């Protein structure tokens, strides 16, 4: 079973996203900020294939985590989808430049999330 990580400081959002991912056949773990997420990803080395990543979070924000992960060659193929309230063109461009595979603006629907995950080409 492919493994996904949901990173968001809102428990409610994590729960919604985790539910959708489980329906798609992913095994799901959660983290409430970038630092926690990094711990999970490093502990689970190479088993997490997909990360749904919020931007604004305490301790380490999503963009910083994204940049950190993209600097490490071992995480080059990790699929990262930003899911955030940041909805300005410059933010989207910044995240894509930093190596995000896709970008979802909040509020989202289940169809939007599923569609964007499909767009990344990840197998599930």
């Amino acid at each position, binding site marked *: 079973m492919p493994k996904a990580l949901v990173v968001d400081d809102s428990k409610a959002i994590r729960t919604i996203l985790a539910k959708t991912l489980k329906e798609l056949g992913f095994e799901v773990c959660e983290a409430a900020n970038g630092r926690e997420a990094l711990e999970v990803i490093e502990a689970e080395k190479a088993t997490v294939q997909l990360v749904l990543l919020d931007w604004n979070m305490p301790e380490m924000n999503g963009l910083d985590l994204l940049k950190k992960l993209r600097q490490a060659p071992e995480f080059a193929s990790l699929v990262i989808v930003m899911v955030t309230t940041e*909805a*300005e*063109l410059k933010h*989207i*461009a910044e*995240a*894509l430049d930093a190596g*995000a595979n*896709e*970008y*979802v*603006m909040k*509020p*989202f*629907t289940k*169809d*939007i999330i599923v*569609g964007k995950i*499909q*767009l990344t080409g990840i197998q599930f």
Partner: protein
Amino acid sequence: MHSQTSISQIHPDNYRFLQEHIYSQVGIVLEEDKHYLFESRLAPIITRLGLGTIDDLCALLKATCQPEISRQVVEAMTTNETYFFRDPAQYEAIRTVLLPRLIEERRDTKRLRFWSAAASTGQEAYSLAMRLVEAGLSDWNIQILATDFSSKVLERARSGKYQQIEVNRGLPAALLVKYFRQSGAEWQLSDQVRRMVVFETIDLRSSMRALGPFDLVFCRNVMIYFDTQTKKNILKQLHGTMFRGGWLMLGGVETAFGVEEFFERRTVGNAPVYVAR
């Protein structure tokens, strides 16, 4: 004051009247159990006109010639839902198989013609346009005809303006960044892409003789509403607008069943494609 339940009251004669009216206006068949649909779609019109119930609305339509109200009723009853790159497998088949072939075949004329035949608010035509620019064809003589029987949706399509929820759905973020600008709460598609598409009000049940020939026709998620005979006629006419070997793309649950003499069904990648014979 009228409560919700009074709006939804439809006399069986009026239900039949609305069914027939919508069938005669757009060819759409509405089943016997669509009361909730009439209720939710017609309530805004009823309120706007200061009427109380669907029966009142029918009485008005029957008593006087009201082309404007009649048009509003028909448009309210049809589904316009659409989104960018709906059915990605089809766009993938176009990118990997159709375009390389056309680029080869048309390298002299550099002329390509496409049709989005139930275009709604334009996402289908514009998705194709972006694909064509991405394929390096921006200096080719390309035209995408986008038609719908509803002038209201075409007006929106022509503006190239979309809400956040619309650009969030199906559209790769890289294309959003590349081809859209943000203006207030809306996202404005670039002129480069908009210029590739021309819009026209066309009812699919009218003659298509003046149209084409096309290399590719999208006729997606509209024929589900038509009866078998209407559908057959439309498919036959669509065939007449296409180059031999041109591709017809239907919606996910639609088939060109019954017109095998005109189209050959092939599977390209993961997409069913109907190739004009």
